[in-house]
């Protein structure tokens, strides 16, 4: 079917801007976001590892940076990203395996991982 | 169960001068059709018979006919005009003054109300006679109805208007047929004629609208099954 000129002009109905965020959708997007943060954390980690396995001077520098504000924040961010990615990853794996596939459990588990990540982020912030 | 009369192959039939003729290539099945196998009531399981038996029979008949007739005869080159005229008559008279009582939804609601008040489950001659009158008056108003939407793309108000025209015709023939049938049968329950009368009324009502008037005709019910013995109809009791 060839598309007439009127058809090509048809507007696209709004989507992301109007769709209401629901726990499962947040859980999925947060999985992506946390994964992305973890990937970005890899070069930082390598830089740290490089420093820690280098000379004692290097080690001290890394220690000092880790205890700086930026260092603490990076660790915190990577920590909760990993925690969330880990928890939701287990959730995804169990769903793939077909264990927790009822509508109720899917909703509940999304709430649980998001809630757990929020609690963990606060705890982590307090601990550092 | 009413509908477009068909034979057992799903082909639409009509009464010509030489008796019943089938209209080649025109089919009706399901809720639209009346093969003359159901009783006067619309029972839940009837649709299964329509789907499983007559749906298949009709499909087979369509295939058979298409194998014999690969091409349809040339269409009359003006055949589209009636349809277009019908649409244009609605769209063309868009801004005609008619008052708020003359919109589609209002007339439809009034039609539904008349059918509800005068042709509901238990009926009498007096009530139905008044109903037919009210309905005919309303039907005469229908040409005055107007659309508020003149858009030519996906105009659902236009569709509703055309549906209303069809519904109005159906309401009129239903009402006239019910008034004329002086007995009780199936879903047609009359307080003034509570009994079934098989000697006179075991027949289908054939209704048509000609020159703005409802015309009624009748044809016999098929009572002879093809492969098993026939059994005489009996009164249904609860």
């Amino acid at each position, binding site marked *: 079917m060839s598309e007439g000129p009127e058809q090509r002009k048809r507007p696209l*109905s709004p989507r992301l801007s109007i769709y209401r965020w*629901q726990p499962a959708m947040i859980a999925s997007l947060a999985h992506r976001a946390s994964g992305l943060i973890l990937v970005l954390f890899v070069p930082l980690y390598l830089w740290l590892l490089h420093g820690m396995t280098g000379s004692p001077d290097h080690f001290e520098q890394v220690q000092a940076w880790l205890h700086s504000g930026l260092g603490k924040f990076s660790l915190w961010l990577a920590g909760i990203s990993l925690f969330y990615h880990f928890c939701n990853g287990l959730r995804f794996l169990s*769903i*793939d395996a077909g264990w927790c596939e009822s509508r109720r459990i899917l909703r509940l588990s999304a709430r649980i991982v998001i809630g757990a990540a929020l609690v963990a982020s606060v705890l982590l912030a307090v601990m550092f | 169960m009413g509908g477009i009369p068909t034979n057992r192959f799903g082909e639409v039939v009509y009464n010509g001068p030489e008796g019943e003729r089938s209209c080649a290539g025109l089919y009706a099945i399901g809720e639209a059709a009346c093969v003359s196998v159901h009783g006067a009531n619309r029972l839940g399981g009837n649709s299964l018979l329509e789907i499983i038996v007559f749906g298949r029979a009709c499909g087979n008949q369509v295939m058979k006919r298409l194998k014999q007739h690969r091409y349809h005869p040339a269409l009359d080159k003006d055949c589209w005009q009636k349809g277009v005229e019908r649409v244009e008559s609605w769209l063309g008279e868009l801004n005609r003054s008619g008052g708020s009582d003359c919109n589609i939804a209002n007339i439809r609601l009034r039609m539904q109300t008349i059918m509800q008040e005068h042709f509901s489950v238990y009926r009498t001659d007096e009530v139905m006679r008044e109903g037919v009158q009210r309905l005919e008056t309303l039907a005469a108003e229908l040409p005055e109805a107007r659309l508020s939407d003149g858009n030519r*793309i996906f105009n659902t108000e236009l569709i509703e208007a055309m549906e209303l025209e069809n519904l109005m015709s159906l309401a009129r023939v239903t009402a006239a047929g019910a008034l004329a049938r002086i007995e009780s049968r199936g879903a047609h329950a009359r307080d003034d004629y509570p009994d079934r009368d098989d000697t006179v009324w075991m027949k289908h009502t054939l209704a048509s609208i000609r020159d703005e008037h409802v015309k009624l005709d009748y044809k016999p019910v098929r009572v002879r099954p093809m492969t098993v013995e026939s059994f005489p109809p009996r009164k249904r009791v609860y």
Partner: protein
Amino acid sequence: MSEMIALSVFRYDPEQGDKPAMQAYKVPMSKPGMKLLDALNYIKWELDGSLTYRRSCGEGVCGSDGLNINGVNGLACITPIAGLKQPIHVRPLPSMQVIRDLVVDMDHFFDQYRQIQPWLKTETPTPEHERLQSPEQRAELDGSYECILCGCCTTSCPSWWWNGDRFLGPAALLQANRWIVDSRDEAMGERLDQLEDSFRLYRCHQIMNCMEACPKELNPTAAIDNIKRKILARKS
């Protein structure tokens, strides 16, 4: 005077070609248990005959009036007004070409349904009577056969928004699974071959908007995962 309901409805007039805009309406609460479709009908029949939307059975069976209601997809005819925050934002199904107002072009959606070949495929000769199923085999179809193809799930799926040209979407995949789990169908291998593609099937990232949107309370996510497991079982 009865209670008034505030609505904000998506309007687009293809003849004017203007940008779509939201239009406000006020509708009286006419009866307890009033549904959103009743409000739309009131607008069309009493206030503004040009408002355009699809509707048919009015009881959640035909799947014509799938809409985005306050940000979530659902059927107008079975969505009670009472539970909705006002003004009720009514928009067409997301990420679809708008024909007019709330009416969208469903062609691509049904093309995708057609792509999964939604009919019984068999190799064995047709038996003299029916192809019988045990009650357990029949029960496998629960959760799939109820789908009315309203499009609420597919158009709620972000993966389908981004890659709808290639990702089949929840509705088509739920139906694909319906034939895969059908004991009478003999083309599971062929069906899985057709689906095993990083876009057609594996674009599902378990966002589960489909499940939240489904007016028949089905679970397309689980159906998609079941197809993935069938492919996994075949490979390992």
